[in-house]
């Protein structure tokens, strides 16, 4: 499993700034275009004379929903159909979806059972994994943003640290696990360390790019106003670099979730990674399939959450 950090800079910021040559006439045209809107609302208040040839509004919204929901539903149905057909052949080594559901009914319906030891419901397995990711990722966020600011702000730190980062970030996450186990002599902190070391590089690198891309104008404003270091950090640096930082955070959370499953396979205990490994050892293939679905959904949700927070925090800062 190799995961390379892709350093995607947010497209909004890299796009050229809007030209400043908009005139005050903009307000005039806006006023002009608003008149038909007024007319339209007046017309709507009067009962339409030719008995509505247009489709009613609710049918339109329904159509919009259908246009958005139907394509993914059809895609999933098709894929399931192909899988069902392929796995129903005699001698197929993987179970078809129908069998997966039948086999894992107990797990699906009872996510919160607890029979002690590793024998707990899927919800507990996922929560155990999420907890490790939360710890490792949180440390990565703090350390990553701090180091990113250091490297982005000070050329000397950049020269000293960047070569080290560039080499270390290419080390696959699992390669860190033996070292971590040797250091911590315990599975859980080692898994958390693997998450941390996986997520920290894209956060460092994107943060430093964001800091280095702060327009000189903003720096000059800060200098003229004589902001001190702390004020500069919170009022200029963080908002200006937020779009970059959050693209790093998003890549980081995705990588953490990729790494946790692999790490848990090796350290054992409760967690979705070991659940998959355990299921493989007991030939419960259907359980593996179910776990993969859950892993995918949780990973997707993590990505959405970070992206949503990013958009909320960085609102306004990516446009000029």
């Amino acid at each position: 499993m190799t995961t390379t950090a892709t350093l995607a800079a947010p497209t909004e910021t890299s796009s050229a700034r809007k030209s400043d040559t908009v005139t005050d006439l903009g307000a005039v045209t806006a006023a002009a275009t608003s008149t038909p809107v007024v007319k339209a609302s007046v017309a709507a208040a009067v009962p339409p004379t030719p008995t509505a040839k247009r489709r009613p509004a609710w049918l339109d919204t329904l159509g919009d929903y259908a246009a958005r929901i139907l394509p993914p539903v059809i895609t999933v149905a098709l894929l399931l159909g192909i899988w069902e057909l392929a796995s129903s052949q005699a001698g197929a080594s993987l179970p078809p979806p129908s069998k997966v559901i039948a086999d894992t009914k107990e797990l699906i319906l009872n996510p919160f059972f607890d029979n002690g030891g590793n024998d707990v419901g899927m919800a507990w397995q996922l929560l155990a994994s999420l907890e490790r990711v939360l710890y490792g990722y949180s440390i990565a966020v703090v350390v990553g943003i701090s180091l990113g600011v250091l490297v982005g702000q000070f050329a000397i730190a950049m020269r000293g640290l960047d070569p080290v980062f560039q080499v270390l970030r290419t080390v696959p996450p699992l390669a860190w696990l033996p070292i971590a186990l040797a250091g911590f002599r315990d599975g859980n902190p080692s898994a958390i360390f693997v998450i941390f070391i996986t997520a920290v590089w894209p956060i460092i690198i994107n943060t430093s790019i964001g800091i280095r891309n702060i327009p000189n104008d903003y720096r000059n404003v800060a200098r003229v106003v004589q902001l001190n270091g702390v004020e500069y950090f919170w009022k200029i640096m963080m908002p200006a670099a937020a779009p970059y930082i959050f693209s790093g955070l998003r890549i980081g959370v995705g990588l953490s979730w990729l790494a946790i499953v692999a790490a848990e396979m090796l350290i054992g205990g409760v967690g979705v990674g070991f659940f998959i490994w355990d299921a493989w050892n007991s030939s419960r293939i259907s359980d593996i399939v179910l776990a993969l679905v859950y892993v995918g959904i949780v990973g997707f949700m993590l990505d959405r959450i970070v992206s949503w927070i990013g958009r909320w925090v960085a609102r306004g800062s990516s446009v000029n």
Partner: protein
Amino acid sequence: MSQSFLELSLVSMAFKTRQGPFQALSGINLRVDKGEFVSLIGHSGCGKSTLLNIIAGLYHCTSGGVLLEGREVNQPGPDRAVVFQNHSLLPWLTAYENIELAVKKTSQGKRNKAQIREWILHNLKLVQMDHAMNKRPEELSGGMKQRVGIARALAMEPKVLLMDEPFGALDALTRARLQDELLRIVADTGSTVVMVTHDVDEAVLLSDRVVMMTNGPAATIGEILNVNLARPRERLALATDARYLSARKAVLEFLYHKQLKAA
């Protein structure tokens, strides 16, 4: 000997480049009185913006020095507020908050919370932008952004207001309107202004003195023109005023005859 308000003595500036040092400015002497409006004009690349940045303290001149009220300028500060060419408003802050960022620092120990708010609103009104105080820069037109930029600079109560081609990015009509407003604001506030421009009409209309710079490298002051036009000045009346026309001609003469640049 009377001390001048803002004094530049033998200011020279060399930039390090790969081809060795580049002498941008050389031996610039200039005195600006309190309440005076001085423009720096010259062909692009002559170092007029560099000179402004040296006064602002954003650059350090390699030799010579700048004195403001007898004190040496060696770092940027709100007493020399800058109106940047591209407005430089922070896009994540509203017009009000952009000014607040500047005012909070300069009002420490001088104004309480309510007075700060009042002062920000006063400055927004001065540039007729109080109606848009809660708008972000992206929602404002170019001219409106520059108004807020001017309000931010004025709100710092600078001893000298520095303007770096403040209207350069605006269309002709908006530019003319903002020039008229600047005339009014400067008259109201009695500000001392140093403005960089490449617009001859702008320089003559607004300034008490037009400082014409020679072409680089090693640019220096070529001529200084006193614009002896009474204030308040009216754009339309001046359009046919003989003194205005001759001042304008003198600047054009300097730029296109004596300092013609091979483009």
